[in-house]
Every structure is written in C-alpha cells, then in structure tokens.
C-alpha cells in the first residue's frame, strides 16, 4: 500500500521504544505519576469524609432518641451539636451548607415505636456533592438497623431479630437527588490520570523532533503520515496499560473499590480511552511549533476534561452547554463506563451507549492528526 507500509511502520515503532527506554524523565512519569496522583487526589479529595455537620430536630427526648444519636456519633461520620434546632433553622442550615444532614424525629416517636406504629424518621441530605455524603448515608442505614435493638429488647423482650418494633428511615436527598454514586472518585481518577499522562507524553513527541531538528531528517525520508503517527503511539499504548494496572491495584488494595464487573471489559475500555488520548496528544504535537505551545494545547484539552466530564461536578447538575461539551469528551463516557463496570457490574450491552462516542472521538482525532501532520516543512 502506498500510504501504509508495515516495515516502515515497524521501524518507527522500534525507534520510539528505544528512545523511551533511554528517556529517564518519561520512565519516571510512567512509574511515579499514577502513584503520586492517586495518593494526592485519592486522599485530598477525601472519598470518605467524616465529621459531617448534622442538625437534629427533635420534639421530645427519650431513651431511644438519645441512644440513636449516640450511635450516630459513634460512627464518626456525624458531628452533632448538643443544641437542638427547629425545623426552620435546620432547613436554613442545609440550604446554606452549614449542615450536610438534618435528622428529624416525629412527635411522639417513642410512643409510636413502643406501640409498633413504625414512626418515620426523616433524614435530609445535602447531595450536591454525592461522594461527600455517600459513606455517611450507608453508615446511617446500618445504625438505623441496630441502634435501638438493645434498648427495645430491654423494654419489651423482643427475641426475634426481625423485630416488629421498628421505625422507618425516610431519606430525602436534597438539591441533587440523582447524583449519588459510591466510590465515584477513584474510578473517575483512573480516567483522569490516563488522559493526563497519555496526552502529556505524546503531545511532545513530534514537537521534540521538530525542536531537535530530527524532524527534517524524518520528513526527508520516505515515511507516510499514518506510519509516523500510528508508529509513535504504539509504545505509549503499552505504557498506558501498565499505568492502568497500577491504578487498578491501588483502587483495589488501598481504596477498596468494589470490582463487580469483568476485568477484560475494564481493560478493553481503558485501551479505548488510551487510544483516544494518544490521538489527541499526537495531533497536538503535529500542530504545535514548540514545546510551550504543546503544553498550552494540552491544558486547553485537559481543563474541560476535568471540569465538564462529571469528575469534578455532577454531570446532570451542569448547564446544558456544559453537558454538550462534556458529551464530546472521552473522559465523560469513560467515567460512566468504568463506574458502571466496577461498581454495578455492567456488561457490554449496558456500556455500549458510552463506548461508541469514545470510538468516534478517537477516529475523528486520528484523521485530524493525519491531516495536520504534513509530510513537508511548509
């Protein structure tokens, strides 16, 4: 074929491998970057924040409410003031962000409980940042099941664990009811790290040849755009897969993210994300005249990826225009896919609506890259 010759392509691949092997900085980036970023982001963006401000609205105090509240305190998630609030004060605290939780016990809670009338405890959650409150909520659910068991046993001698003497928790997510996903951050971080390193490493690759003067030599040789572009990214695919493994190991061992789905699927979609980002990087490097420009373009791509992909802010809480931009970006779809696989055990059927946009993106950018990579010095 005129525009693609396997042995010419292979010569580029080999050359890139040799060069990466000697490039200490890149090697360091491959190894250290995911670890540094994971620990920085993973711990700084605390996935499991404790001491969330909680207001209690309480009509009457009893043994039961006291032990419920102390059980809540013991989880460490809830920071409960001794002073009680009125419903209106609590509402205002929630609105202004002074409190993340408001727990309201109904009038006559203890009496209803003892008469087995299943009183309803209302829990209002500020869900604008779902990851902040997710773990606290699950702790709350556990407390609800066990907290009053001992007290009730004491009073009415319930033997059976499915005690009829119980109450209902009504959880009311305020401000962003659909946004709650547990373990949002780490799978999301995987896409962010892969995007960042892949784009950063390749966006310099052709630019570097241009600055060192070796591009003139390469251009004077009979090698076609497609061979250069695809040949140059091959070693980085392997680099990406290594990083992917590092991140998954960290996610599992350090952050204990659940792995519900198929690992092969995880790697397949990660490969797709890697490809899409390598295409972006190589296209940037074909366009950039120098390394500064390459870095600027990298950030130009990177900012919306972080801000509009649903990684930083809940996607459906963003304005329409931001959602449109977000939907173009591969990271947006990858975040949904990877969370779907890891957390919900999604298979290909469920994730495909978010897979083809990444494919389309990669293909489009590759064509752009081939188009912008000129075979001349003009």
């Amino acid at each position, binding site marked *: 074929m*005129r525009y693609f*010759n396997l*042995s*010419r392509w*292979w*010569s*580029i691949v*080999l*050359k890139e491998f*040799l*060069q990466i092997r*000697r*490039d200490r900085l890149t090697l360091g980036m491959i190894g250290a970057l995911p670890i540094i970023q994971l620990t920085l982001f993973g711990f700084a963006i605390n996935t499991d924040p404790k001491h969330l401000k909680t207001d209690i609205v309480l009509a009457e105090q009893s043994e039961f409410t006291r032990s419920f509240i102390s059980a809540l305190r013991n989880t460490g998630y809830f920071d409960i003031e001794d002073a009680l609030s009125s419903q209106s004060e609590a509402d205002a605290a929630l609105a202004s962000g002074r409190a993340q939780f408001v727990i309201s016990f109904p009038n006559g809670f203890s009496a209803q409980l003892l008469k087995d009338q299943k009183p309803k405890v209302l829990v209002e959650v500020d869900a604008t940042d779902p990851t902040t409150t997710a773990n606290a909520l699950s702790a709350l659910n556990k407390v609800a099941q066990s907290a009053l068991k001992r007290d009730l046993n004491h009073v009415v001698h319930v033997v059976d664990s499915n005690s009829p003497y119980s109450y209902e928790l009504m959880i009311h997510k305020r401000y962003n009811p659909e946004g709650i996903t547990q373990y949002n951050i780490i799978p999301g971080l995987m896409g962010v790290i892969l995007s960042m390193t892949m784009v950063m490493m390749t966006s310099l690759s052709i630019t570097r040849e241009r600055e*060192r*003067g*070796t591009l*003139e*030599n390469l*251009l*004077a*040789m*009979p*090698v*076609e755009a497609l061979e250069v572009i695809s040949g140059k990214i091959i070693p980085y695919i392997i680099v990406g897969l290594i990083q992917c493994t590092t991140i998954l190991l960290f996610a599992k061992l350090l952050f204990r993210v659940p792995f519900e789905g198929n690992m092969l699927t995880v790697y397949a979609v990660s490969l797709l994300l890697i490809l899409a980002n390598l295409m972006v990087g190589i296209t940037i490097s074909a366009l950039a005249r120098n390394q500064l420009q390459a870095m600027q373009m990298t950030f130009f791509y990177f900012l919306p990826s972080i801000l509009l992909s649903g990684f930083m802010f809940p996607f459906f809480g963003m304005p329409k225009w931001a959602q449109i931009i977000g939907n173009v970006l591969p990271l947006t779809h990858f975040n949904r896919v990877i969370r779907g696989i890891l957390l919900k055990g999604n298979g290909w059927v469920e994730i495909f609506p978010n897979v083809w946009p990444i494919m389309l993106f990669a293909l489009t950018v590759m064509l752009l890259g081939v188009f912008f990579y000129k*075979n*001349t*010095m*003009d």
Partner: protein
Amino acid sequence: MTTADYAVTVEGLNKHFGAHHAVKNLSMQIRQGEIFGFLGPNGSGKTTSIRMMCGLLTPDSGSGTCLGYDIIRQRAEVKRRVGYMTQRFSYWEDLSIRENLDFVARLYQVPNRKAVVDETLEELQLTSRAKQLAGSLSGGWKQRLALAASLLHKPKLLLLDEPTAGVDPTARRIFWEELHQLAAKGISILVSTHYMDEAERCHRLAYISYGELLCQGTSAEMIQQRQLTTWQITGRHLVQLNRTLEACPGVEQVVAFGTALHVSGTQAELLRDTVEQHATREGYDAKIIDTSLEDVFINLMKTSEGAFN
C-alpha cells in the same frame, strides 16, 4: 542534452516566507555524475533551494525534476531515491550509532539490512563504537555518520547542505576524497559550501545571493563570465595603499591575500591607469595575474550587496 542526462533540473523556483522572498526564479541543472557546488553567503537561500529539490518544501511557483521525478507531484518517489544530509546534524542523538543506521536502513527497506549496516560500520571504522550514542560523537564523526546514513539506500543523487561546516581540515580533505569516489561511481552530488577551496574541487558551480542565482558554470567559465582584470601588488604599507586604492576609478575591489593585494575591476584600461599611478612609482611591485575563483566570488558578493543596499 535531454532531461535524462540531468540529475536535477529546476525552472523558475520561487519561495516566500511571509513577505520575505527567499528564493527568486531559481533555474539550475545538475548533470549526472557531477559534483555541483552551491555557493553563497549565509541566508542567501541555499538550504531553502535544496529543500525544494528534495520535496521538503513546496515552491510557490516553478517546476522541477529530481532523478526524473517531479519535485511537487512525485515527492514520495523523490524521497525514496535521494540522499539528503541536513545542514544541522539531524540523526537521533539518543540512539546509538548502530540504532541510527538500523532505523534508516529499515525505513528505506534496504535489502540485507544487517549486512549493509555491519558493512557501513566497518567502512566508517565505527564497529567498536557501534553502541555509543550518536550524541556523544564529535563534529567530524557526526558528519561521517550522517553521510554514511544518507548513503545506506544507495541513492543516485546526494544533496549535501554545508556538510563540512565546523569540521577540521583533515576530516574535510578525507570527506572530499570520498565525494569524488562517489561521483566516480556515477552518483550526482549537490553540495553547498562556504569554503573556496571546496568550490575549486567541484565540477560545476552556482553562486546565489539574496535568493538570486547570479552565476553558474565551471570555475573557468565563471571566471571568464565575470571579465575581471586582476593586479597583484606587493610591497610595504599595503594597508594604507589598500585604503587609497578602494576609492580610485576602475577599482571594484581590493583584497588582501597574505603579503599581496589583489586589485580587480572590469574596466581594464581604467584599472591599469590607477595601478600605474599609485603602485609603480612608490617602489611597489605590480603585475597582472589570472583572476582566481575567490576574486570572482568576492566580486559577486560585492556587486549583489551594492545592489541591495
């Protein structure tokens, strides 16, 4: 002669960089098997012209062929057959000598790659240093490596852009011997240079200044075309005489060559009067000599500078 006898023919090539007209109406022919010298001061457009010939730059207008292939429409064919050595060393400094040669040989799909690379290393006397990084070589070795690499695919035409800049005299002499051996095998060579002694070693020459080709031919033809008469003056206080003569009628240039002055001009009678008036009576020794290529180049440079300033 037909186009088949030419390794390179270009007609009316023009190239602009923004408002700057870097190459103006360049027409040039390089014959099969000759060493063609491309001379001109820095920034005169030599590199730009060579890049247009090997398909690296698209001319704004004009046409040309390289080894019979169109330099605009058949670039891939041209690139496959031409050996180009860039002005600045442009092999990969973070690859070893062998890796560089191996990469180039693979890319050109050289048959018996391994054997060819081994042989090249042997000829370069670099077999023992094959694993050394190219970036650690000295200027002279880099230039030899670059030449060897550009010859791996056995091109019929070599385009060498100032290959000997910054290389010591012995290495230059060896380099030129190699070029003559290559030419003897029928390889056509275009070589741009600053050095006068190298110009004398070329079969034919072209002189370019401010993007304009001023003169082309053998060195004898160029000397003849210029029609300069040159006087050689020896004696004392030459520095003073130099200054005096520069302002005199008929004198186009005065150049100090060691212990002698070369005074040249196209108007022979006027020049004779001037020289006799100033140089004979004060105990100087003046005689007419053959105009050298160097006198011609200095004259070309002066005239074109005069036209632009």
